[in-house]
């Protein structure tokens, strides 16, 4: 069987590796689909719903990071409808917790923030929930701020799949979902955490950060999983 297949993206014919996802195919062809949870080298989960695309013949939107490209598929990755849905998804993310860019360690280096800028999210149409969420400062080197977490699960996956420690998980359901450390331990009380800092580096927002960094100072290194695989400790 030929290892290459051909699909259409926004009307243009594109060659793809058999078994690759729509997201990967588009990226290889130089076409950018927005996304916050997907990361090369980690298993895709389709959590953020920002990479949704239209596939001809399918009457619902599909997450491009978890949908394999198939021979003859015709995919629309940019349309007014998709832009509207993506903006809506971002606004929901922003309204869900307390994202206060001005005082955030990741201000200026935040994927959520830059995507909002790119998609033209100038205001949030939904009422902010302003949940009262804690900050876990118990780890000697890192800090978890639930207020800034978008539940993308990159940290969960990099810890389980790359570091092999599986410190993180998601607890609760729906709007009550929360990142949790080893069956609800504090991060400082974790028995498996190797303090490698991979979770901090892959976090797209300021939810996971190195301690002691002042506002705007936390620059993440999310270049590749190969690089991350050897990350040990902080970036100072």
């Amino acid at each position, binding site marked *: 069987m030929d290892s290459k297949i051909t699909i259409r993206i926004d009307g243009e014919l594109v060659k793809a590796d058999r078994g690759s996802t729509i997201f990967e195919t588009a990226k290889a062809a130089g076409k950018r689909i927005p996304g916050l949870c997907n990361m090369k080298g980690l298993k895709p989960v389709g959590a953020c719903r920002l990479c949704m695309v239209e596939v001809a013949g399918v009457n619902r939107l599909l997450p491009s990071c978890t949908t394999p490209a198939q021979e003859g598929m015709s995919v629309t990755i940019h349309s007014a409808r998709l832009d509207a849905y993506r903006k809506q998804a971002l606004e929901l993310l922003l309204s869900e917790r307390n994202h206060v860019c*001005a*005082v955030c*360690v990741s*201000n200026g280096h935040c994927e959520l923030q830059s995507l909002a800028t790119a998609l033209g999210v100038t205001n949030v149409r939904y009422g902010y929930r302003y949940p009262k969420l*804690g*900050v876990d*400062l*118990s780890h*000697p080197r890192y*800090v978890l701020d639930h207020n800034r977490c978008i539940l993308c699960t990159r940290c969960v996956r990099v810890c389980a799949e790359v570091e092999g420690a599986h410190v993180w998980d998601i607890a609760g359901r729906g709007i009550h979902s929360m990142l949790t450390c080893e069956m609800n331990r504090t991060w*400082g009380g974790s028995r498996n955490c190797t303090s490698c800092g991979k979770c901090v580096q892959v976090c797209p927002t300021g939810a996971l950060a190195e*301690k*002691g*960094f*002042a*506002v*705007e*100072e936390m620059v993440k290194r999310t270049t590749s999983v190969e690089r991350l695989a050897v990350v040990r400790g902080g970036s*100072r």
Partner: protein
Amino acid sequence: MGKKIVIPHITRIEGHGKVSIHLNDAGEVASTQFHVTQVRGFEKFVEGRPYYEMPSITARICGICPISHLLASVKACDAIMAVRIPKTAEMLRELLHCAQIVQSHALSFFHLSSPDLLLGMDSDPRKRNIAGILEKHPDLARDGIALRKFGQLAIERMAGERIHPSWTVPGGVNAPLTVDARDAILSEVNIAKSIIRRAIKLFVSIIDRFEAEIDSFGNEPTMYAGLVSAAGDLRLYDGILRFRDPAAGGTVVDVEDPLDYSTYIGEGVLPHSYLKAPYFKPRGFPEGNYRVGPLARLNVAERCGTPEADEELAEYRQRLGRDVQSSFFYHYARLIEAMYGVERMEQLLNHPRILDTHVRARADVNALEGAGIAEAPRGVLIHHYKVNESGAMTWANLIIATGHNNLAMNRAVDQVAKRFVRGQRIEEGMLNRVQAVVRAFDPCLSCSTHALGQAPLVIELFGQRGEALDRVSTDCD
């Protein structure tokens, strides 16, 4: 029947303030109240946050003097980390602070108060603003704008942003000063000095017109508080907190450890205001009334410590005495301090170590409590934090400069109202004087900027049973 006059919006100040004037049956002022009508809640909602986020969070208290909050906050954080920051970092912080003092003093004098001083307290309120100054005294208005720009640009050149920069961090600053920034700021120093010289000359030339105001604008004995060096020089970034009482012959106490502030400063609560009223504890409430800010600082310090400011200070004292009592002279003191700020910037920029690259100390939590005291443009600013062993904030107390002056402002409003307000006939100029005395303190009531010319002035007269008797409204000023 007694009446009550309410000035619901004091104009040309930062934030929301209100004044109530109660009249007796004869139409004379019986009592007054100066209210601050907003609550912010910073001390409470920072609980649980990492201590090192405090500088950027508390800087949001104010858009005019975020640098003061940044500095008081990073100093409190330094104390929690128990580090001694590099000498160059200390100088850079002071440099940034001086630039801010200059821009804030320029705003207060030229933009907010010069309309009262140059156009007159009784002038047409529609023109009594910076636009009116531009029309009548265009050179002065341009000077004011240029001086503020000098300070703001210096901040931007050092810290990257004019408002809420992230340059100052616990342990120092996050980047050294560049040669280009140093040279650019130095190239403008002389222009800034000449603007201040002109402003001082102008102020001195108009003093005689304000005899009645000088006599009644908070012209009562109080104590004064401000930062000084061990030798008694004026200090803005760091120093010993000195309380001075002219009536008691001079210095009452020197507070060397910032954490000891609570031994001497108590915080009273006034039933009619959200602003607390700090007082000097050993004298009790409200007898322990003291003032902070430019007037107080110049009273507390023996000298400024820079040549031209010291010359001006000598003339100021020759005219007004060693301890200047009338709050009207806050304006004069502010201009002398602006000169000090520019001269101090020049000294620091020419310091051989100002370009050193070691500008940050790093440490974790080494103390569970820390306080930082700096001189904001409006006076002593205290940030006091407590954290747990992980560095999460458990408690915060902030004493903002304007707060220290609360009791003094209340008394000053009372004094001015009793002198100028007669209830039988309300004239706009009378009530403007009540507001002007508040303006003299340059209070930062919300610690946030307000657009000029937006707040309508509404004066309402109430009878003893609360019925509206009269209403005067202006849509300008």
